[in-house]
């Protein structure tokens, strides 16, 4: 008994945080959301982060989306002063020594249009030229930056026809029709503008709840393959449902070979757009059991991840929400049905007092089970005055997955912050997943994994018949499954490489189901390597 107690005490004292949180040399970004007394809703919503290797040097670079300047009150026409360098989005190129260099200007990413207040970012190689392209969402117009392959980008929005409009939030590239070309999905929050902003709250002036403003539609762009996109929102059935969408994630939830879309809606039912395989989608969240809480209550869905948390091979959904709602974990039962499992998995205890945004399921301790990371912070910047048990600044939640049950662990974050976007990837190529979290009014927090002794495998997909990065592929390694995507979380885009913790295993069996339908198996793959797998040219 005493021995056990001593062990617990010693273990607690010795347990090191999961990450070392630092700001690497060269990153001097501040997410300027410009809060005003008007409580314009956009102020509390940015901003995204992307982890991508834009110059193919093997090192992940960081792209950060900035908000903009808001005047108090705003004048017409709206001007967010994005020409001012303080409000630029920023691209930081990683150097060999782990430091970063701001390459925003030389990459052609400076400024972002004075009428655009920045929100999120999506990453995908839409023209299959081997270089990742960037899509930046805004309140205003969105921008598609084509990666020229020489360290620079070109704004091709007008030609591509993907400017959107209104208030776009998260976006993601995926291939919904399996034609080998990445299509684009854009979530939009609501019909809102600064002229029609409202004042909410009683004694304390607060941001209004989403129900105060009309819902709106999301956008689906089909890639024609000639550098242009077609808006198929109506034809595909996506625009048949109006929502208040924030996060979006992709996976093939029923294993029919077509990628489905999960949309996190704020203050209402969530959407699961089932891909019918004929270019159309049917929204089926309610009938599939993933649209509401188990008590039939609406959710304040913000971020979302669509990955397999319990290693049964099927993608599950975790939606981050406001306090008192509990982050929703919808377990994929495999028969076109989901079960709510937030309570049994420990998410109830972990999340009921927190406001979650960016979210990831990543195997941070390389034990073969995907762990949880959630960027957190309440929507209202004065929430403590209304309810002292809630906080605008929160620590992120990190939780280790023990056979399908999540247990809180110390993230190592030095201070609470208004966390928003979160992206995941192996920044220092050590085989251990890292994370980057954006913070309103401050610099990003970069979580470098302290590592350990477990084995790992990182796979890069090289599609030939499928899209070049194999987005949409289902990859199974030693009983774990990942769905290849850069999307998910909130406003953010993660490393396209697929990371697997192998535990004590020194070899792995890799099974890939490519979007083209090709199946590929690799046996006895050595652990602890970055492996590129090329899709067979013939099935």
């Amino acid at each position, binding site marked *: 008994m005493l021995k056990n107690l001593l062990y617990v005490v010693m273990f607690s004292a010795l347990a090191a945080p999961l990450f070392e949180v630092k700001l690497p040399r060269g990153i001097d970004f501040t997410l300027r959301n410009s809060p005003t007394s008007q409580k314009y809703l956009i102020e509390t919503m940015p901003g995204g982060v992307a982890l991508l290797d834009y110059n193919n040097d093997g090192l992940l670079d960081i792209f950060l989306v900035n908000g903009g300047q808001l005047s108090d009150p705003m004048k017409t026409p709206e001007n967010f002063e994005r020409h001012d360098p303080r409000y630029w989005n920023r691209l930081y190129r990683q150097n060999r020594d782990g430091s970063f260099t701001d390459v925003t200007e030389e990459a052609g990413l400076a400024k972002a249009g004075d009428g655009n207040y920045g929100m999120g970012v999506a990453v995908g190689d839409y023209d299959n030229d081997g270089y990742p392209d960037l899509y930046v969402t805004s309140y205003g117009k969105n921008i598609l930056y084509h990666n020229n392959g020489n360290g620079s980008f070109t704004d091709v929005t007008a030609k591509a026809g993907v400017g959107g409009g209104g208030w776009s939030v998260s976006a993601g590239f995926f291939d919904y029709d399996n034609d080998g070309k990445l299509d684009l999905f854009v979530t939009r929050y609501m019909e809102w503008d600064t002229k029609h902003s409202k004042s909410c709250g009683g004694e304390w002036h607060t941001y209004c709840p989403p129900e105060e403003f009309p819902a709106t539609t999301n956008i689906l762009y089909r890639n024609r393959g000639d550098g242009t996109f077609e808006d198929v929102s109506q034809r595909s059935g996506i625009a048949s449902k109006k929502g208040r969408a924030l996060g979006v994630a992709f996976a093939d939830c029923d294993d029919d070979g077509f990628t489905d879309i999960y949309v996190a809606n704020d203050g209402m039912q969530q959407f699961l757009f089932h891909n019918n395989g004929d270019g159309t989608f049917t929204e089926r969240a*309610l*009938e599939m*059991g993933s649209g*509401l809480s*188990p*008590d*039939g*209550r609406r959710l304040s869905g913000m971020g979302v991840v669509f990955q397999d948390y319990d290693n049964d091979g099927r993608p599950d959904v975790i939606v981050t929400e406001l*306090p*008192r709602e509990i982050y929703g974990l919808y377990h994929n*039962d495999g028969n076109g*049905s989901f*079960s*709510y499992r937030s*309570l*049994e*998995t*420990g998410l*109830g*205890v972990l999340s*009921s*007092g927190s406001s979650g945004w960016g979210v990831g399921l990543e195997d941070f301790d390389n034990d073969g089970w995907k762990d949880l990371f959630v960027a957190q912070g309440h929507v209202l910047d004065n929430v403590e005055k209304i*309810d*002292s*048990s809630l906080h605008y600044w929160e620590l992120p939640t990190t939780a280790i997955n023990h056979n399908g*049950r999540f247990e809180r662990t110390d993230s190592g974050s030095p201070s609470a912050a208004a966390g928003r976007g979160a992206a995941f990837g192996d920044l220092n190529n050590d085989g251990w997943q890292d994370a980057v979290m954006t913070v309103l009014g401050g610099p990003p927090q970069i979580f470098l994994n302290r590592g350990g002794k477990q084995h790992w495998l990182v796979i890069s997909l090289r599609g030939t018949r499928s899209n070049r990065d194999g987005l949409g592929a289902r990859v199974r390694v030693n009983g774990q499954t990942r769905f290849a995507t850069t999307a998910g979380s909130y406003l953010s885009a993660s490393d396209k490489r697929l990371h697997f913790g192998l535990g004590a295993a020194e070899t792995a069996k890799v099974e890939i189901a490519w979007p083209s339908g090709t199946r590929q198996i690799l046996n006895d793959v050595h652990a602890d390597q970055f492996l590129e797998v090329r899709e067979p040219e013939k099935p």
Partner: protein
Amino acid sequence: MIHIFLLLWLAWQTVSPEALHHLQAGIESDKQRHYDAAIAEFKKLTELEPTLTAGFINLGAAYMEKQDYASATPPLTRAVELSPDQAEAHQLLGYALLAQGYAGEAIPHLQRAHEEGALGVAQIETGQLQDAVVNLQAALAKRPNDPDLLYYLGRASGLLSKQSIDMLQAAYPDSARAHQAMAENYFVLRQMPQAEKEFHAALQLRPDTPHLHLELGLVYAGASQWEKAEEEFRAEAKLQPGSAEAAYRLGNTLLQEGKVREARAELQRADGLKPEMPETLYALAKAASLEGDWSAAEKGWVKVIGLEKASDLAAQAHFALANLYRKQGKTAEAEREMQEFQKLQNTATNAEGSNK
């Protein structure tokens, strides 16, 4: 009604034809809501018949229709002087005085008129809270669901409660009960850190006081601090093993923590202590569902719907049943329950809309 009475009464008296004419004209104007004309007629009547009580009552009543209580007071006072046993005169005078804030002066008149509701209101104003509660309860027994009476009874009870608490805090400021009262006050005001502190102070002084652990548990549950809430509810359940609420709260907290088996046992205990409680049955069915006992879950939720019909909890039970049937492949049943859920949700949304 007063006018009908007065006409009958007048029949027994001898008044001049001219006075009778003014009386009839006044009553007619009053009926047509021409109060100024009525007042003029009743004034002439009181000049012609200065000892006729009915004239003064009618004049006072007409002023009161105009909400001119100050002008109503002198003729009504005169009516009471002329006919001290005239209940209607006392009633109107009592109302007129109360409306002007002269609660103390109004009370004897309202007592004479047996006007318990207004008397209770006047007694609140004069601090006779216990009498006020008694009178308002009596008035409510005659006019159940009267919103004004319900409001004043609540106010009187609240003030009475506050009076007791103030006395407690003045006399025994460091007692467990004083801390408990403070804690409850903070809880209502949603000042949870202060409420927590006061509950702890009370518990330190009298750890075996019933409800203290329960109330502190509610503070923690409200802040989603489930582990602390469990500790407190467990302590309350140990202290009061016969308390269904303690068992329910503990069971529900265990459910939030994902301790499903324990939760189910505790909720079953709550159900045994106080059967047919919809909240307990709902949570019990939820626990059964999480344990894979779909039959028990179905039975529980069906029972909730039977008890609750169209409440929010019934809507939740319909939704839970829809999910349960869907998992079982009972598509038609699932659709039926989902439709019921949506119907109740729409009703609730419409109600919300009409309240805005």
